[in-house]
């Protein structure tokens, strides 16, 4: 198995920073919405802010690092192994021959750090390989296309 492994783990080092920025943007949006909704009531407003900020820091300093540590994408010649999760860590193997087509998407924050998300579309389900470097996404796409040509 080790012989046909191409890359050990292709998760980008920017994984954490990208997800932290996205979470912060969501937080800003939530603060604005809560301020608009509970402008007249001080106590519920403060309580909601306390909960929100607590959740935000728990997300930034605990949830996201654990997710990052659990997230591994092992690239092989004919398949990819995707390992991710928080409480329950799931490991799935996707054969390139079973992938019907792939979609590479890049959000605004992802574009700034040169990372992207690859959706591997299969019959009945899809697997997301998120926050990997663009060159690794191209390599993954190349391997997938090559398996189709061989198949």
């Amino acid at each position, binding site marked *: 198995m080790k012989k046909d492994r191409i890359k050990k783990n292709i998760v980008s080092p920017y994984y954490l920073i990208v997800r932290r920025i996205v979470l912060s943007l969501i937080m800003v949006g939530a603060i604005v919405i809560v301020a608009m909704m509970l402008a007249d009531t001080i106590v519920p407003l403060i309580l909601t802010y306390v909960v929100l900020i607590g959740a935000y820091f728990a997300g930034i300093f605990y949830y996201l690092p654990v997710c990052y540590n659990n997230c591994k994408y092992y690239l092989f010649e004919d398949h990819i192994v995707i390992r991710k999760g928080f409480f329950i860590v799931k490991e799935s193997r996707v054969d390139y021959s079973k992938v*019907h*087509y*792939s979609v590479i*998407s*890049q959000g605004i924050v992802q574009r700034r750090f040169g990372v992207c998300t690859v959706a591997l579309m299969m*019959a*009945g389900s899809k697997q997301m390989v998120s926050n990997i470097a663009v060159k690794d996404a191209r390599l993954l*796409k190349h391997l997938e*296309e090559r398996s189709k040509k061989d198949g």
Partner: protein
Amino acid sequence: MDKKRKFIKAHPYSVIRHLKISVLLVLITVLQQFLIRPRGIIALIGSLGINALYVIVILSYYISVYGNFRYRLENRAIHIHSGIFRKKDYVIPYSRILTYVFYTNVLSVMFGAAKVSVDTPAGSGRSHDVSIYCSLRRAREVRERILGKEKRKPQYRARTLSILLMSAFWSNPVTGFVFIVPTIVSAGNILGTEARNNIVLNSLNYRDSIIAEYVSPVAAFLASVIMMAWAVSMLLFFMRYANFCSYRVDQKLVVSRGLLSRCTTVLDMGAVSYVSIDKSLLMRLLKLQSCTVSVIGSGKMKGDIGMIVCPEEKKKAERNIRRLTGIVPRESNIVKPAKFSIYSYIYLPLYVLIGFIILYYLSGYMPFLRETTVIFTQIFSAVSVWWLLFRIYSYRNARIGLCGRCITLCGFRRLTLKHYFIPMDKIQWIEISRTPFQIKKGTCNFRVHLYSEKNVTCYIKQLPIAEVRAFLSKCRLRTAYPAVHDLPIDPSTY
């Protein structure tokens, strides 16, 4: 190596088609101002404000979608770039595409545009995987790539009469509501008369006077709305299925239909999950039958999914089915439901019918709405009898069997008797379920799960378990793969 081509923009018609709604929105406001309640120009601009803002936002969104959409038809795949904020990059190999749908309508042809949609097994089942608005020339290029440059004559062309019948009765979703119309009208009339009598007999009552004056016209209005909806639905359905024709090009099946907006579907015959011959009770009385196929991707089309032969006489339908799909509907090794199991087919309509009969006799003791209840029960008893007859008909025809390399299942789905022909390699698994009563009686329910994005299953009730087991062992002999328990235990010896 792929011949590299430039990425092309979508056809501007993808934006123009949204102008229809925008123009309507603006026009309605202007007409309201000038015809119904004329006011000054400032009031007009004021009332146009929200609609205009909506139009500007919607149009600027679609213009930016159009501006960010690029596609390229490569030698092996379709390559698409899209997305305003989140950029997406699709690569769909031609080898994975099972269904192509080409849409054109009067307006798009005027602008020289067509919509090409493609579907793969990885789709969601709710919408097409990818849709591209391109020029007619490029749509033709895609079509020629799939079907070749040679022009073919349709092998099957549907009669206008059969499409009219289809759109008037069994395929029209509003047909069921037409049964309620006489009930509504007569209930309205009876209520109105009762209220008028009350006014004459007793002193003037405010509630009765309202009922006497308004219920009858409201009921008539409701009935006319339902009849109008039925007529509109029939017209739409007829427009959708007019000029229906189908033909086969090697491994591709082409179905073309539509009057003002034309839809041409190209299905891969190798990916057909099942071919089904459909008959409702009315179709049976008129000695007609239609044929549909299921391919992943074809489920996104509304109405009669994947219809390839419209309702035709038996001989003509069978000839066209053979020509288009290669299936000759002759079966062997037939297994029919157990003789005593008719009850499980008819119990639901039977109980409903008994309920209506009881209600009919009880209506004699009702203090009010007596005549309305009588009419209601009479009409719905007739509907229940129809349902019961259909269930008896489906029990008499229910069976499983073999036809070449296909398993055949004949069972009912809603009010249609469907005769499925399922290629053995398209069967995902077969489920045989038994309740404690069925274990005692030696029967089972037989369900076939198919390769589809919608988890399609075909189902027959109350088959004798011993005969089903014998049937399955015969099926195994016909397949290329041995059953799991037939394999040697040690894999190295195999």
